[in-house]
C-alpha cells in the first residue's frame, strides 16, 4: 500500500515535471491564437530559446542573463511572426513551419560553431540551474500516512518554474477573462472588423499577443535547459511544441482547459515508461508507442467532432484587411 502510494506520488511528480514545458507552450499558443494568429512555430521558438538560455548560461554562468537571452530570442521570433503575418499578411501556417525548420538547423549550426560538441552546449553549472524548493518540507510531509507521499513527493520539491507555470495558468486566465485587454484580444480573434469599428487597433492587439507569446514560449525553452536537462541537445524539444498545440486545441483554446490537457498528455508520457511490460487488466500489455501516439489520436478525434466540438476562434488564421 505504501509502495503504491509512493509510486503514485512519484508519478504525480514526473507528470508535473514533464507537463511544464507543454503548459508553458500551450499558454503561449492560447494567447496568440485567441487573438486570431495561428502559431505553428511553438516547436521552433521553444528550441531556439532553449539554445539561447543554454548558450548564454554556459558562457556567463548567470541565471538572470540566461533567462534574459531566452526572452529576447523568444520575443524577436514572435515579432518576426508579427511582421510577416500581421503587417504583411503572410501565411501563418507557412511562417510557423519556417520558424521551426530554421530553428532546428540554426541551433545545431551555432552550437557546433561555438561549443564544438556536436551541437550540444556544455553542461550548465548548478549556479545557473534552478533550485528545487520545499525539499525538506517535502521529505517530512512524506512521512504522513496516506496523503503524505502524494503531497510530499508529488507536489513538493519542485523548482520555481513548475510552480510558476501553474501560477501562469491562473495569470493568463485572469488576463484573458478578467481584463479589458483580454476582452479585446478575444474579440480580435472572433470578429476583428468589430474591434476595428469600435476604434481599437487589431494590429496592435495582435502584436501585443505575439509579444506575450514570445515571452511565455521562451520560458518553456528556458525550462528545458534550466530545470530538465542540464544542457542543450540538438532537437531536444522532440515534438513537444506540436504536442502543446494539440493540447491547446484539446483544451478548446482555454488556458485552464489547455493545462488539463497538458497534464493528461504529460501523465501519459510519464506513465508510458512505467507501463512498459505491465499487463493492464482486460487490455493486456499496452505498447509504449500507442501511449506516445495517444495525445495525437485524441486530438484528431476531438477535431473530428466525435467527443464534443472544438471551435477555434472564428477569425483564426485569416489576416485582417480593413475592407470597405
Amino acid at each position, binding site marked *: 500500500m505504501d509502495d503504491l502510494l509512493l509510486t503514485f506520488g512519484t508519478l504525480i511528480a514526473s507528470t508535473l515535471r514533464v507537463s511544464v514545458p507543454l503548459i508553458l507552450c500551450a499558454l503561449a499558443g492560447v494567447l496568440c491564437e485567441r487573438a486570431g494568429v495561428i502559431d505553428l512555430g511553438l516547436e521552433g521558438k521553444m528550441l531556439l530559446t532553449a539554445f539561447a538560455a543554454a548558450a548564454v548560461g554556459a558562457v556567463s554562468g548567470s541565471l538572470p542573463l540566461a533567462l534574459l537571452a531566452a526572452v529576447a530570442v523568444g520575443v524577436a521570433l514572435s515579432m518576426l511572426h508579427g511582421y510577416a503575418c500581421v503587417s504583411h499578411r503572410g501565411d501563418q501556417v*507557412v511562417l510557423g513551419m519556417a520558424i521551426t525548420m530554421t530553428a532546428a538547423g540554426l541551433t545545431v549550426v551555432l552550437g557546433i560553431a561555438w561549443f564544438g560538441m556536436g551541437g550540444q552546449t556544455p553542461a550548465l553549472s548548478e549556479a545557473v540551474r534552478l533550485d528545487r524548493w520545499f525539499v525538506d518540507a517535502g521529505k517530512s510531509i512524506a512521512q504522513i500516512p496516506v496523503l503524505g507521499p502524494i503531497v510530499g513527493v508529488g507536489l513538493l520539491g519542485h523548482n520555481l518554474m513548475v510552480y510558476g507555470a501553474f501560477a501562469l495558468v491562473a495569470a493568463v486566465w485572469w488576463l484573458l477573462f478578467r481584463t479589458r485587454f483580454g476582452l479585446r484580444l478575444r474579440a480580435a480573434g472572433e470578429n476583428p472588423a468589430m474591434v476595428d469599428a469600435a476604434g481599437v487597433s487589431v494590429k496592435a492587439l495582435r502584436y501585443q499577443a505575439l509579444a506575450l507569446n514570445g515571452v511565455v514560449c521562451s520560458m518553456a525553452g528556458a525550462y528545458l535547459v534550466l530545470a530538465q536537462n542540464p544542457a542543450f541537445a540538438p532537437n531536444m524539444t522532440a515534438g513537444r511544441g506540436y504536442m502543446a498545440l494539440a493540447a491547446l486545441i484539446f483544451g478548446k483554446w482555454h488556458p485552464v482547459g489547455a493545462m488539463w490537457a497538458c497534464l493528461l498528455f504529460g501523465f501519459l508520457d510519464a506513465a508510458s515508461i512505467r507501463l512498459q511490460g505491465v499487463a493492464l487488466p482486460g487490455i493486456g500489455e499496452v505498447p509504449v508507442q500507442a501511449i506516445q501516439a495517444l495525445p495525437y489520436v485524441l486530438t484528431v478525434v476531438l477535431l473530428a467532432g466525435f467527443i464534443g466540438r472544438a471551435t477555434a476562434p472564428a477569425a483564426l488564421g485569416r489576416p485582417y484587411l480593413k475592407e470597405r
Partner: protein
Amino acid sequence: MSQPVELPRWMDVLVLPALNLVIALAVAGVVVAIVGFEPLEVLQLLIRGAFGTPSGIGYTLYYTTTFIFTGLAVAVAFHGGLFNIGGEGQAIMGGLGAGLVALAWSAHLPAWAMLPLMVLAAALFGAFWAAVPGALQAWRGSHIVITTIMFNFIAAALLGYLLVNTLKAPGNMNPESAAFAASARLPGVHELLAALGIAWPRTPLNLSFVLALLAALAVYLGLWKSRPGYSLRATGFSPDAALYAGIEPKRLIVVAMALSGALAGMVGINEIAGVHGRLLPDFVAGAGFAGIAVSLIGRNHPLGIVLAALLFGALYQGGAELAFELNGFSRDMVFMLQGLIVLFAGAMAHVAAPFLYRLWKAGGGGKLAT
C-alpha cells in the same frame, strides 16, 4: 501596410521567387560567416560536392528523387486549396506499405511482379494516410493542417511499434526488418549504366528517379490537361465558382489528398526499395518538410518543382560533402537554409513585391501593356 501589388506574370513566376531565394541564401551566408566560414568558399565547395564528381551527381539526384515526390505531393494538394503538411507521415506509410508487401511476397515473386506491387502498396498506404484527414476536413470541418501534423506523429509511432515488435528481424540488435529478397529491390542506376558499358560509381541513385520524373509529368498532365485537374484547380482558386459549375468539392478534396499522399508515399519506394532493402526507422528524415520548401520555390508547378528539387538535392549532397571537408561544418546548415527558404519564399513571399514593382516601374515597365 502591404497593399496587394499586381506584378506582371513573368515577374511573379520567375523574378520574385528568384529574389526570395537570393535573400534566403544571403541570410544563410551571414550565418555561415558568423560561424567562421567564408561564404563564397562554402558555396564553391558545395557546388563541387554536388556536381563535381559522378558520385556526387548520383547522390544529388538520389536526394532530388525524394524531393520531387514530396514537392509534388504538396503542390497537388495546394492546387486544391489545401495545405498538406502530412508528407512526413504519408511517406512513412508509403514505405511501410512497400515494406510489408516486400516482406510478405518478395521471396515468392519475380521482380517484374514484385516491384509494381510495391509501388501500388506504397501509393495506397500513402493515399489512405492523406485521405483520412481530407475526409475529416470535407465532412467534419477538421482543420487539415492540424490533422495532418497529428497524423505525422501517429505514423512515426506506428512504424516504431511495428519495427520493434512485429517486424524486427530475429537476432538483430537494431529495430529493423529482415532484408527483402532481391526481387524487391529497385536496380541502382549504376547497375543499369554498367549493363550499358558505362562505368559509374555506386550511389543510392536508383530507378525511382525515373519514376519521379514520370510522376512530375503525370502531375502536369493531370492538373492541366485532365478534367479532374481542372475541377481541382477551379476549386482551389474559387470554391464558389466550382459549386456554380456543378463541381462537388467534398469528394474532390478527398481525392486530391489521396493523390497527394500517394505521391508522398513514393518516397518509400526510393528509400525502401531503392536503397535500404529493408524497413528501418527514420528513412524519411524530414523530406516531407523539405517538400514544402520545394513546392514553394517551385511555385507549385511540376517543372519548377523538379528544378527546386534539384536545387535541394544539390544542397543536401553539397552539404554532406562540406561536412566531410570543412571541420565544424554540419549538414544542419542545409536544414537551416531550407527553413529560411520557406520563410522568404513562403511566409514573406510578397514582402518584396512592392519594391520589385517600384523598381520595375522606375525601369519603365508596364507602359506598353494594357
